[in-house]
C-alpha cells in the first residue's frame, strides 16, 4: 500500500461511513421483515425482494469503493458532462421509459429497471457546485443567480414532466444550498410564510382570513410606529395586499392546478377528509403500524401489520412503518436521530472544505438526504401529505440506493482529500 492510499484511509470520515452502513443494514433487515409473511424464508433467495436488495447492497459497496479510489478531481472536472448525460436520460425516459404507478420514470432492462431521476439529483448537485465555484461566479450577480436556478430547474421540470411530483420536489432542497451561498434570508422566510398561508387558506374561510390579516398587520403597524422611528406604511400595505391575493389564489390553485389525488392527500393531512378506506387508507394504516409498535416494538418479524401487508408500499416508501412497528419508539427515534446526525455531520464537513466546489456539493448532499428524510418520515407519521419518495439507504430499490451511495461517497472522497483540493 503506497503512502497516498494510507493517507486516504486515515483521512476518510469513518463516522459517516458507519452511519451509512448502519442505515443500509437496518434497511435490509426491515425489507426482509416487510416481505416476510409468516413462513420461514431463505435469506439468499435472489428472486425475493430482500434477496435482490442484497445484490444491490453488494453493488453499492463496490460503487463506494470505486468512488473512493477514483481521482477526486474526476467529478469536478466532468460535472457538466455528467449533468448533460442525465439531462439527456431524463428526456429520453419520457420517450422510451416504462410507466410505474403513473410516473414515466424508468428504463426497463429485463427484470431490472433504472430510474434516472434518482441519479439526476446528484448530477445536478455536481453541476450546481461547478457553477457556483467557477472563478467568475458571484451570487450577488443576477447572472450567477439565474444560472444556478436554471441548473436546478431544468432537471426538476423534466422530472415533473415524468409525472413524478415527489422526485421533482426534491430539487427544492437546493434552496438550503443557495441560502448558504448567499441567497437572501427573506426568500427563505417568504417560502415559509407561503406554506403557512397556504395551509391557513385551506383550513379557514378566505374572507375571514383576509380580515384577520388586516387586523394583525394594522396592529403590527400601530405597535411598531411608536418604537421604530422610520417606518414605511407602504411596506405594510404591500404585505397585506400580497397575503390577501395569495389567500384568494390558493383556492384557485388548489382547485385547478393540483390533481385530484394531490388534493385528497392534502385534505386527508389537514383532517378535512377522513376516508380510511379510500384516499386516507395508506396514512391511516401507516399510523396504526407505527403507533402499535409501542416503546420497544413488537420485535423482528413479529409486526402483524407489516407481515400481513396492511400497509401498502411497505418495503419502499412506507418502510418506516416496519421500523416503527417492529422496533418501536426506540428503533424509530434512533433512526430519526441517525439521519439528523448524518445531515448535521455533512453540513459540518461541508464547512471544512477548502474548495468551494466541495462545500457546495457537500451542502447539496446534506440537503437532498435531509429532504428525503423529512418528506418520507413526515408522510408515514401523518405530518406531511403522501409524497412518494424513498427513505435514503433504507427503502427497497436499486436505483435509489446506488444514487445515494454515489451522492454520499463522492463527497466523502472530496472530504478525505480536502487538503489537496482548492
Amino acid at each position, binding site marked *: 500500500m503506497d503512502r497516498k492510499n494510507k493517507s486516504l484511509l486515515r483521512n476518510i470520515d469513518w463516522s459517516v461511513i458507519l452511519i451509512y452502513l448502519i442505515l443500509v443494514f437496518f434497511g435490509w433487515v426491515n425489507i426482509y421483515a416487510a416481505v416476510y409473511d409468516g413462513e420461514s424464508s431463505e435469506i439468499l433467495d435472489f428472486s425475493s425482494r430482500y434477496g435482490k436488495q442484497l445484490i444491490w447492497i453488494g453493488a453499492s459497496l463496490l460503487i463506494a469503493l470505486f468512488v473512493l479510489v477514483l481521482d477526486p478531481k474526476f467529478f469536478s472536472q466532468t460535472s457538466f458532462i455528467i449533468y448533460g448525460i442525465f439531462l439527456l436520460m431524463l428526456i429520453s425516459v419520457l420517450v422510451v421509459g416504462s410507466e410505474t404507478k403513473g410516473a414515466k420514470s424508468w428504463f426497463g432492462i429485463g427484470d431490472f429497471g433504472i430510474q434516472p431521476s434518482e441519479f439526476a439529483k446528484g448530477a445536478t448537485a455536481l453541476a450546481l457546485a461547478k457553477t457556483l465555484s467557477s472563478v467568475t461566479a458571484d451570487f450577488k450577480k443576477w447572472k450567477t443567480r439565474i444560472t444556478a436556478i436554471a441548473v436546478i430547474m431544468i432537471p426538476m421540470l423534466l422530472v415533473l414532466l415524468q409525472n413524478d411530483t415527489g422526485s421533482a420536489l426534491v430539487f427544492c432542497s437546493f434552496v438550503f444550498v443557495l441560502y*448558504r451561498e448567499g441567497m437572501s434570508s427573506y426568500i427563505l422566510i417568504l417560502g415559509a410564510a407561503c406554506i403557512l398561508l397556504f395551509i391557513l387558506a385551506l383550513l379557514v374561510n378566505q374572507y375571514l382570513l383576509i380580515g384577520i390579516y388586516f387586523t394583525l398587520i394594522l396592529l403590527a403597524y400601530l405597535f411598531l410606529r411608536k418604537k421604530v422611528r422610520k417606518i414605511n406604511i407602504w411596506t405594510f400595505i404591500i404585505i397585506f395586499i400580497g397575503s390577501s391575493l395569495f389567500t384568494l389564489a390558493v383556492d384557485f390553485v388548489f382547485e385547478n392546478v393540483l390533481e385530484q389525488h394531490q388534493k385528497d392527500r392534502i385534505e386527508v393531512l389537514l383532517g378535512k377528509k377522513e376516508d380510511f378506506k379510500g384516499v386516507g387508507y395508506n396514512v391511516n*394504516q401507516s399510523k396504526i403500524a407505527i*403507533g*402499535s409498535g409501542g416503546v420497544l416494538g413488537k420485535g423482528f418479524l413479529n409486526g402483524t*401489520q407489516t*407481515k400481513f401487508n396492511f400497509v401498502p408500499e411497505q418495503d419502499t416508501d412506507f418502510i418506516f412503518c416496519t421500523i416503527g412497528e417492529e422496533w*418501536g419508539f426506540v428503533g424509530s427515534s434512533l433512526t430519526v436521530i441517525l439521519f439528523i446526525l448524518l445531515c448535521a455531520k455533512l453540513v459540518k464537513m461541508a464547512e471544512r472544505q477548502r474548495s468551494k466546489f466541495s462545500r457546495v456539493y457537500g451542502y447539496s448532499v446534506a440537503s437532498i438526504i435531509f429532504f428525503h428524510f423529512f418528506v418520507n418520515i413526515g408522510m408515514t407519521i401523518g405530518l406531511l401529505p403522501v409524497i412518494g419518495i424513498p427513505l435514503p439507504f433504507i427503502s427497497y430499490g436499486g436505483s435509489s440506493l446506488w444514487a445515494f451511495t454515489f451522492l454520499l461517497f463522492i463527497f466523502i472522497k472530496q472530504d478525505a482529500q480536502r487538503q489537496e483540493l482548492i
Partner: protein
Amino acid sequence: MKDSFSSRRITITAIFIIVGIIYIVRLAHLQITDDSYTRLANKNALRYLTQYPSRGLIYDRNGKLLVYNEAVYDLMVIPRQVKEIDTNEFCSLLKITKKDFIKKIEKAKKYSTYAPSIFEKQISKEDFAPLQEKLYKYEGFYAQSRTLRFYPDSVACHILGYIGEVNEKTIEENPYYKKGDYIGMSGLEKSYEEILRGKKGSKITLVDVHNREKGSFQNGMFDTMAIAGENLYSTIDIELQKYAEKIMANKRGCIVAIEPNTGEILCFVSAPYYNPNLLVGRVRGDNYKKLSDDISKPLFNRVLMAEYPPGSIFKIAQSLIALDMGVITPNTGFGCDKSLVGCHNHPSASNVRDAIKMSCNPYFYRVFQRVVQRTNPKTGKIDSKYGLSQWTEAAKRMGFGTRLDIDLPSVRKGYIPDTTFYNKWYPGGWNFYTIYSNSIGQGEVGVIPLQMANFAALVANRGWYITPHIVRNFGDENKKTKYTKYSEKHYSLIASSYWDIAVEGMWGVVHEAGGTARRAKIDDIAVCGKTGTAENIGDDHSVFICFAPKERPQIAVAVYIENAQGGGGTWAAPIASLIIEKHIKGKVEREDMEKYYIETNPCQPLPLKRKIKTKKK
C-alpha cells in the same frame, strides 16, 4: 474556507434538528401516549374466533337419548373486507335472492363494518358442502360451525324446552353471552342452562390484509379451549312419555306420572303439544308464530301453569285434614242431602271410606263445614277464620298452594284461599256459607296438574313426598352430581293411621261396586284412585288421580282432560289406568280399551261456549 455566510450553517443545522425533534415528539405520541393504534392494529390483524362448546345431551331414565346435537354452519361476514364478488353465484349457493343479499350486507354494515356478524345462519351440512368449496373466493366471508338441537323421538317438548338466540337484555345482564349465542329459553334447556352450555373458548388467529388466516396468535398462548356442556340424566321414561303423548295426541289436558318413593317424574305431557324439532334452526321463527297463534295454546305448559279447579279429587285432602283435626272420625256419616249441594244418585255414606268411594258432595259439604266452623281456643267462640287458617296450613303442607320446586322454569303455585284473601274479597264479612264450594274442590281452589300428581304420590307414600323432578343427576358418566333437594322428604304431618282410610277409599273407587272409577280397574294390579269432575266455563274437566299398586306403589298418576263430557270416571280414570298398566306391565293388555281411548277425542271443540249448569259427581 470561511466566508461571510458561513454562520448560516447554524440556521441550516438548527432546521435539521428542529425537524428531528418534531418527529421524535410525534413518534412518542403515536407510539407511547396514544394506545388506540395498538387496538386498531389488533383489529386489523387479529380475529377472535369463538369456540363453541357442544351442549350437554339429555338422556331418559334408561339411557336413551332425548336430545342430541347436530352440526350446522353460520356464515359470517366482515363487511369492510368484502370485495367485488360474483353475487349471482354466491346467492345461488346460499339459495337467496340478490335483494336478500343486499339487505343482509346492509344489516351487517349497520352493526359494524369491522366486526364479524352473522350473514346467514344455520346452514345445514348438506347445503354447506358446495359453499365450503368456493368460500375462499369470497373475501370477508367465513364459516363458523355451530350445533343445533335435535330430538330423535320428537317428544317431550314441554320438558326439554328449546334454545334460542339471546336477547339484548340478557347480553346486558350477563357478559358471558354475545350476540348470536344460544341460550335455553324454556324447559330443562333453561333451568339447566349453566350445566348444559359448557364454557365457550376462544381462538385468536392472525389474518392478513386479504383476510387470509395466517396461523395462531403467539402460538395459541391466549387461546382457550371450549369446555363441553355436561349431560343430563333425566327421570323420564321415554317409552311411557311416547305412550302418554300418543293418548293425548287428539286431546287437551295433562298426564303426569311420578315414581312416589323418589319423586322422579316418569312422564309429563301437556296437550296439545308440538314436535320439538319444529323450534329448531331456520324454520323456528315461522313455526313459533304458528304455535303461539294457535287457539289451543300448544306452547302453554299446562302441567306447570294451568291452575285448574281440582274437583272431587280434593275430597281426599279434605278427609285427611278433617280426620287429623279431629272434627270427624273414620266412621262419621252424613246423609246425601242434595239441598245443600248437588249430587248424583247413590246411597248415603256412613263413613269416610265410603264417602270417598262414592264421592258424595253433601258429605264433604258437612266435613268442610266442621273444618271451618271451629271453636277458637282463644276466644271460645265459633270462628270461621280460625278454622279456615288451620285448613289453609294443612292444605299447603300437602303441596297445594305452594311452589313445588321442580327443576323446570315457570311453575305456578296454584291457589289455596286464606283468611286474608276472603277478608279482602268480602269486605262485608264472610263465613262458611260464602266459601263452601272449596269443600268439593271448586270455588277459589286452584291446583296445577303437577300438584295433583304430587298429591297422589303423597297418598301413595302415606304422608310424605319428595319434590317432583325431571333430572336425576348430571355431569360426567362416572361422577354424576345430584341435587340434594330432591332427596328430602316433605311430611304433611297428618297422623299415619288416617292415610290408610284414604287409601282404602281410593281402592274402593276403582274396585268396589258404587266406586266412581270402575273403568280404571286392571287385572292383577290394585289401583287406588279418585275421580274429579271440575266445573268451568265449557264442559266439565275430567280429572283422575291414582297410584298403583296399593302396596309398595310404583307409580302415581294425575290425568286431567279438559272439557271432556262425562266426568272423571269416564275419561281421566281409564286413561290413567292405561298409563299404570304400561308402566308396571311394560305393555297394555286391554287392547280394545287402549284403541278406544287413543282414538276418541272427548274434548269440547274450541272456542268454548258457556254452558248452563251441570252437576258434580
